[in-house]
């Protein structure tokens, strides 16, 4: 339970320029989400209808790049650019992984948005997605209120 109570510091202290780097990576991610059409409702719907491979290729390739990258980082015991330990910090197993995961999946099929794409949809000028963001923050509050009563 305590993993849910605490909000641990997310990693080593950041230098000011690293905030600029975080912004730049966000920009690249936002451009990619738009240009790859991951934020389009039709693409998400076609994925769940098994009508095209587009989304499956993107997710599979991203993982196929991520796994060897992380293997190398661990194997070579690489440090961050500021010489600190890399904060792996993966979420642990608890029943919410299944119940929450199913709930999110339903919402994903309705809105065509996981959290990253919500922001990208809004940025691209699709203002109806503001409703998705308001709902998402509301849903987060619902979780916060119910947290102690939900099975974890």
């Amino acid at each position, binding site marked *: 339970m305590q993993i849910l109570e605490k909000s641990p510091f997310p990693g080593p202290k950041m230098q000011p320029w690293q905030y600029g780097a975080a912004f730049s990576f966000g920009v690249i991610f936002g451009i990619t989400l738009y240009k790859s059409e991951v934020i389009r409702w039709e693409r998400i719907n076609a994925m*769940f209808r098994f009508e095209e491979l587009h989304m499956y290729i993107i997710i599979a390739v991203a993982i196929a790049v991520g796994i060897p990258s992380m293997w190398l980082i661990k194997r070579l015991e690489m440090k961050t650019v500021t010489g600190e330990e890399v904060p792996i910090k993966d979420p642990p197993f608890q029943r919410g992984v299944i119940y929450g995961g199913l709930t999110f999946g339903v919402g994903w099929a309705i809105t065509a948005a996981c959290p990253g794409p919500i922001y990208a949809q809004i940025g691209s000028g699709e203002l109806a997605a503001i409703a998705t963001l308001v709902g998402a923050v509301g849903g987060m509050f619902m979780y916060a209120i119910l947290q102690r009563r939900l099975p974890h």
Partner: protein
Amino acid sequence: MTDALTGPWSPWISGILIGLMVPALYLVVGRRFGISSSLRHIGAMCAPSAKSEYIRLHNWRAHQWNLVLVVGVIVGAFVAAQFITSDPLPILPDEANSVGGVLRLGFGGALVGFGTRYAGGCTSGHTISGISNLNLPSVVATAAFFAGGLIATWGLSFLIFSGS
């Protein structure tokens, strides 16, 4: 070359760029790639005296980098839509721009916010970062995400836009 940039990007290139977010953020920013925690940071920023400890005791300032990342995503999508797209395609179906559509998006959004926080991550935190780290719970989470999407699309189709 211009067409390759301004037209839709190949899923292969896009997948590589998304996958590289994981080591890039770990090594350059010193942080784990994930987006859904931003919802909690926004909540803690807007409601510092919330009753729930999940919000009140959350030190969002320690996670400001994540909000910076999110602002970057908004700016990036704006730049992509305005300046590097020859033929913009619709993002959401037309029906989304109606009272019913907005309510439906709000409802779906609530499921996204509740579900990702309950699961401890989303497609970025679990499916991309978690599986890259061979984190087994993230594999289970990803299976649950897809199962939920399939249940909604095939079994609860009254929830889904008809796509016109």
